């Protein structure tokens, strides 16, 4: 597949939009898929009667009845049950309340879900979507704040999406539910208040394809790649750089597996300078991986060493001053950009 990146703001199908925040758009996306496909079912802890621990799934149980099912606090059973239902032709959406809890069901995700099709020589189709509240910055402490997407990066067989806007969460979650392969959807809980526009009525033109990056801001001088909360800090940094006469191009990959390398390579061919910003420790992550692959495969495109901006190699601290310092800030991105631009 040759992905064509979208350009934020250039995508405007004719439909009347309603404003929703990142929290509310989750129930809307699930409802739109449940309404159009009776095979879609939804299960998780407190997702039904309580409307979700983060109130992200309010109204679904009332509207769709037994297709929305509250489970025991039993993450292995949640994921395994979703897998078994998928084998029988359903399209389950499973919620893992905090992405950190993926540790509890890591085996089901890594050893069963990701490998089922392969292990059975293609007999199994496992269209399971797992949604998880992800990331730091909201004061939840070391076991409720981890950006967990990198844990799954080298497990072939699962797709990973990391939407950073309301529009992308709506479009990618719907695409994930429609996908015949397993998809992990990481919803950043520090973006819940972010606002955006989605169609007033279900509209397939607002699906966002998995594996296609978004050029969040075009520019010719330096490429900044970032996801979720870091996308927004990269955009802030780009605004500050514009004040100093530099045009930064901000790319949000939106999907980590499969990764849209081509959009980044095309940008790098134009800018010759690359910064990758990742929430989370530096090693074993998509950001270092992206830099490694581009240096190995596209060395001639660089006019300066690539910069890797990440969190510290520590657990996520609780106290605000420490947690704020743990997260890469806009000032770090601006400083690194200016260093590379002067290189």
């Amino acid at each position: 597949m040759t992905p064509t990146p979208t350009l934020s703001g250039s995508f405007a199908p004719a439909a009347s939009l309603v404003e929703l925040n990142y929290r509310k758009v989750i129930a809307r996306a699930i409802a739109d898929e449940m309404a159009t496909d009776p095979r879609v079912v939804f299960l998780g802890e407190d997702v039904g009667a309580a409307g979700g621990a983060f109130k992200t799934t309010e109204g679904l149980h009332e509207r769709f009845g037994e297709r929305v099912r509250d489970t025991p606090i039993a993450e292995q059973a949640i994921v395994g049950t979703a897998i078994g239902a998928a084998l029988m032709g359903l399209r389950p959406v499973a919620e893992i309340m905090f992405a950190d809890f993926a540790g509890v069901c890591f085996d089901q995700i890594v050893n069963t879900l990701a490998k089922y099709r392969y292990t059975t020589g293609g007999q199994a189709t496992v269209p399971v979507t797992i949604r998880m509240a992800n990331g730091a910055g909201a004061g939840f402490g070391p076991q409720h704040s981890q950006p967990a997407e990198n844990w799954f990066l080298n497990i072939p067989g699962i797709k990973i999406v990391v939407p950073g806007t309301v529009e992308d969460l709506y479009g990618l979650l719907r695409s994930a539910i429609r996908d015949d392969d397993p998809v992990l959807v990481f919803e950043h809980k520090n973006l819940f208040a972010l606002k955006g526009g989605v169609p007033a009525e279900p509209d397939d033109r607002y699906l966002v394809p998995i594996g296609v990056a978004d050029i969040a801001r075009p520019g010719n001088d330096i490429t900044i790649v970032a996801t979720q909360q870091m996308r927004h800090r990269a955009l802030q940094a780009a605004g500050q750089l514009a004040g100093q006469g530099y045009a930064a191009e901000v790319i949000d990959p939106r999907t980590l597996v499969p990764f849209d390398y081509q959009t980044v390579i095309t940008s790098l061919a134009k800018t010759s300078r690359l910064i990758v910003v990742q929430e989370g420790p530096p090693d074993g992550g998509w950001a270092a991986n992206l830099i490694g692959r581009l240096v190995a495969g596209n060395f001639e495109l660089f006019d300066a060493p690539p910069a890797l901006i990440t969190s510290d190699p520590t657990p996520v601290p609780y106290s605000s001053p420490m947690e704020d310092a743990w997260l890469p800030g806009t000032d770090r991105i601006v400083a690194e950009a200016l260093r590379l631009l002067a290189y």
Partner: protein
Amino acid sequence: MTAPAQPQATASAGGSPPSAGELTAMLRRMHEIRFFENTVQDWFSRAIVRGSTHLYQGQEAVSVGVTAALRPGDTTTCTYRGHGTVLAQGAPLDRAFGEILGKANGLCHGKGGSMHLTDFSVGALGSFAIVGAHLPITAGAAWAAQLQGTGAVSVSFFGDGAANIGTFHETLNLAGTWKLPAIFVIENNLYGEYSPIASTTANTRLADRAASYAMPGVRVDGNDVVAVLDAARRAVQRARDGHGPTLIEAMTYRQSGHSRSDPAKYRPAGELEQWLACDPIIVTEQHLRRLGASDTELAAVRDQARADVDAAAQRALSWPDPDPADRLTDVWTS
């Protein structure tokens, strides 16, 4: 550990006992599994196959008895000691051999191997190499049946060792709460890998656990295919009637070691011999004799099974290996 008590059927009698024809079909399937496993054991011992394998000799009556109570559309999951279960459900002998040999025409095209025999066409949703991982898969298949109103039942087979891993509790609690049409069959062969059950399990009467999940718990003689079939039929009926899951503890014995590399020297003297005396094939033949079968007829069933297994093995051995490029397929649907 002292030698175990002789297994006793505690399931009360009921329903119509299997006819001679049904019993003969079950005996034949048990022979096929036995000869299949003997062949696999021979291949591994002679290094014709790499890796490891986990054999089912001695436990045949459990899978054969339970799957005899199922109908098309019902599904099973089982463990890496699962050759017998997948064959009991009707997977072809040659393609099962082919998978263990890593052939392109194996059940899983050589991607899974001995621990992953799977045949969706007969409802065998898979053999799982992680202890206990398949229990929630069965819950999911049962949930789908409940939602779709198909009347299908899903059965999970697992060892006494798996009764001590977290998925057992998570899945049985969920299945009991949701009243899923599921059956959980413990193949209690008295050993979890190398360890006798009493050294790892506080209450070795595993059927007792059912009370915690508000489902019936039944302990049966797992070497008596008639007792197993009877218990399975009751559980299937209960599930189809919407009354929820059943836990069946089938008392049986693993006649071989845990895996290829285990000679099972930890077994107390005389234990194996005691269990060989109530080998499930012998027990089934005794049932058939009481129904009038002659030694000649019983020998013919055995010999036909052996001939079929041998022919299937020869076919599988003759099949080509997969193209190395095939390793790249089946990761994704497209």
